[in-house]
């Protein structure tokens, strides 16, 4: 049934800043402001109206929210004050939580690798991050990609802006607490979702 509001209500309550979605007046400023606008299948405004219309699958499986470059243009221009950037981030996360986001979506994959890289040591290891990113489709593909980017990597290395640290072994001192903290945060979120 169209305009079944159960999906909308789920989003309002459980996606980050999701409750703002009901305030959209469909003016189109967000879409017009987006640097990658033409690459979005559905603009933020469209996503919001689709959420209201109950189009859960189309929204969650959409690649659209993964196009966000976090430039915040839409957010500062939105005449209704919607924190659109955060809402779009929230929708991406929501799609992950609902297990609808495509695991192979490039940005989603990157986000996962980055998070893991970060969580492992508390800070980003840039070389490990890049390497992992290249290797995600297997080593041959990774080598190919790496070759394509070797000029960039070499110049970074040469200028002293890339550390030879492919294994990313360093840890922050309070790493245990750091891990415990993230675990706790995830627990609380999980609990909230279940309630």
């Amino acid at each position: 049934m169209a305009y079944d509001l159960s999906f909308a209500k789920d989003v309002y309550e459980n996606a980050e800043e999701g409750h703002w979605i009901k305030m959209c007046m469909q003016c189109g400023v967000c879409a017009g402001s987006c640097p990658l606008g033409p690459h979005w299948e559905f603009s933020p405004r469209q996503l919001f109206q689709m959420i209201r219309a109950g189009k859960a699958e189309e929204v969650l499986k959409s690649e659209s929210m993964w196009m966000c470059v976090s430039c915040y243009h839409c957010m500062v221009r939105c005449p209704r004050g919607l924190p659109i950037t955060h809402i779009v981030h929230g929708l991406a996360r929501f799609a992950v939580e609902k297990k609808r986001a495509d695991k192979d979506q490039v940005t989603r994959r990157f986000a996962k690798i980055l998070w893991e890289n970060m969580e492992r040591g508390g800070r980003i290891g840039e070389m490990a991050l890049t390497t992992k990113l290249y290797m995600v489709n297997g080593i041959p593909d990774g080598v190919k990609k790496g070759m394509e980017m070797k000029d960039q990597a070499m110049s970074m290395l040469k200028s002293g802006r890339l550390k030879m640290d492919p294994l990313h072994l360093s840890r922050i001192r309070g790493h245990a607490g750091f891990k415990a903290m993230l675990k706790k945060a995830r627990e609380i979120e999980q609990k909230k979702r279940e309630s």
Partner: protein
Amino acid sequence: MTKTYTFYPGCSSEKKASAANLDISVQSMCHILDIRLNEIKDWNCCSASIGYAEGGELPRLALSARNLGLAQKQSHRKDVVATCAACWLALRETNDRLNEDAEIKAEMDEVLQAAHLTYDGSLRPRHLVEVLIEDIGWDTLKEKVKKPLTGLKIAGYVGCQTNRPFGVCGDSFENPTYLDKMIEICGATPVAFDKKVACCGGALAFSELEKVCGLIKDILQSAKDSGADLIVTPCPVCQLNVEVYQDKVNQMFGTRFKIPVVYYSQLFVAAWGGSWKQAALHQQIVPANVLKRFVR
């Protein structure tokens, strides 16, 4: 008198990381201005603008909350200064959310407890540029100039996250003026630069390089059209994307860009009479040779 601030450098400003040139030039700049930056001990990554997808809301906010908690524990100072746009944004956003949303605050108390930390929301995350403008003042920044960069045409590229959603010193989101003013102070000429606040693609350079190169190309083209010898920016992501991918852009679009991209801090150090190394200009990938005639 020395001004001291708690400092959150962020991952890219680590030694031999991608914005090492930012960090070195910032340190040189602060030295000249008698600013002391006390790095938060054992800080962690903020997960930048891509942490949302895997981390989710609370874990992501927890990253910055931990940094704030550490800062509060380690110092009585209220100001926490960041040099990276994403770091600053994450700190400020987290701080605002904790202050505005009682539910998140309560949850965060519980979360931080797991790391044996507390945070009461009372710190003030600031961008270093704000410190320069508000605490040091334009007059002092100008007084320091020893080698005015006369004749140099510079595109002031403010980018996104230094500018939005919070903005520096209340400056416009669409047409901020502080960077042009900095260029002017250094004796150079700011050019009319259409892409002043355009996006470089940010973190999506890692996942959507082709799309992002399109954005970078527009930025470079606009700088070139405006006659700029040099691009200056406050943001490590902007600097990285626009500088490092120039070859890629040239390859993709058949262009022949070779425009140096430096940080405002590098510019200041150069104009204030600092050395090539102090300004970390040796760490450029597109060499900033146009600055050579001004810097020893």
